[in-house]
């Protein structure tokens, strides 16, 4: 009798999720985000590159699109977008709705014209009903973008050990090393000069010296604005969950957080002839090895608790946080 009841509950809950009648903009967007119907080959979805278990980022320097075509920039996390004002490394989109449709059409990503995507959705029984339920109209480019961006806006992560420490005054939430790291972040490291705000990134575009016109040829923001002053500038990366979104920077050139810290500590040692680098990075910081570890531990403490297991697998929390 109990088994029958449990089975009934399971069936009902499963069909409730599958039924278009119960969908909201956010859950429709979630379904679309994970659906390869939005790619030419029907093999790639948004989630193929924005992997949920890695805070909706990717684990390779650049991602592979349809037919394994290589991307040109590192896939950033799709989390914590609600408070952002620019999207993509070069800021070419200024709203999430605008951002949502660009990878669909990009030949090296999902390679599907929006009109074709819309047509597929209109001829798919589930989506035909779903769009009627949610938007009271057939699928079109506007409501497709709306659904995807509505889902992305739900991906807010503000429950990290760091948040527990600062919001709840829970001194046991983070290690002493992480606390020292936070102090370094705000003082000697000067990280706060660019990485400030609820997601630890500013709205500006900055050049940290990863453009030299030779080996490093992506001019970033200048691709959009065509301004010489924007050469080498990129959107400042948000730092929540950064510990699980390696590799780092617009080209994924740094494999670990320590490599990132080493770079900022003395950029000329890594990229000797950068062009248009921000003057904030002119002087080596002079961090000791302990200070670098502390800074790293602070960054690790920005990992949302839902990804704690992922940190454990990386060995980060077992070793560094004990210091």
């Amino acid at each position, binding site marked *: 009798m109990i088994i029958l009841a449990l089975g009934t509950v399971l069936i009902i809950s499963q069909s409730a999720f599958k039924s278009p009648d119960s969908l909201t903009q956010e859950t429709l967007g979630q379904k679309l985000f994970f659906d390869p119907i939005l790619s030419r080959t029907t093999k790639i979805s948004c989630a193929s590159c924005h992997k949920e278990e890695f805070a909706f980022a990717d684990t390779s320097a650049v991602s592979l699109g349809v037919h394994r075509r290589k991307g040109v920039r590192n896939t950033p996390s799709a989390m914590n977008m609600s408070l952002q004002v620019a999207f993509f490394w070069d800021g070419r989109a200024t709203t999430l709705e605008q951002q949502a449709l660009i990878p669909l059409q990009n030949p090296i990503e999902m390679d599907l014209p929006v009109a074709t995507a819309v047509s597929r959705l209109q001829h798919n029984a589930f989506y035909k009903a779903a769009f009627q339920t949610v938007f009271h109209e057939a699928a079109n480019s506007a409501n497709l973008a709306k659904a995807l961006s509505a889902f992305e*806006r739900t991906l807010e992560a503000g429950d990290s050990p760091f*948040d527990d420490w600062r*919001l709840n005054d829970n001194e046991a939430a983070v290690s002493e090393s992480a606390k020292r790291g936070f102090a370094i972040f705000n003082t000697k490291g000067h990280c706060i000069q660019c990485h*400030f705000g609820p997601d630890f990134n500013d709205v500006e575009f900055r050049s940290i010296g990863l453009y030299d016109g030779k080996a490093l040829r992506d001019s970033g923001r200048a691709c959009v604005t065509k301004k010489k002053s924007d050469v080498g500038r990129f959107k400042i990366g948000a730092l929540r969950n950064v510990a699980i979104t390696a590799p780092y920077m617009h080209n994924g050139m740094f494999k670990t957080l320590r490599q990132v810290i080493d770079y900022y500590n003395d950029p000329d040692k890594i990229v000797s002839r950068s062009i248009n680098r921000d003057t904030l990075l002119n002087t080596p910081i002079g961090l000791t090895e302990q200070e670098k570890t502390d800074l790293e531990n602070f960054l690790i403490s920005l990992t949302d608790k839902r990804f704690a297991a992922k940190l454990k697998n990386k060995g980060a929390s077992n070793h560094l946080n004990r210091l």
Partner: protein
Amino acid sequence: MKKILCLSIFVSVLLPVTAFTIDDNPLLGKWEHSGKSQGQPFNLMAIFRANGTYDGFINKKEFVSGVYHMNHDTLYIADATCNDKYNGTYKMEFFGKLDSLKFHVIQDTCVGRRQATDGKVFKKLVTAGK
């Protein structure tokens, strides 16, 4: 005469120190302001602690951390984002049962901090334990 002088000095030092003790600093605790930005609701919260530190939160995400002190109804506030050596100054207006406050800028060149506080009314949530 010497005794009176010593006593006067002692009292004049003691009085300012006790003028604003932990127990009667009305700014201590959590303060909240809700509003809308770009059509989206947001929640601003500030925690002022007895040890002279404060944190600001947007939608429960920490976005600023700094130091403050109060002198009667004047708030002096600094953080590393703006300049940790520079104090913005605000007149703090408390009303209700000291459970609401309003910031009035006196002088603050830090645009972001001014925009987040000046003229805004915050309601008190919980008194800080520290």
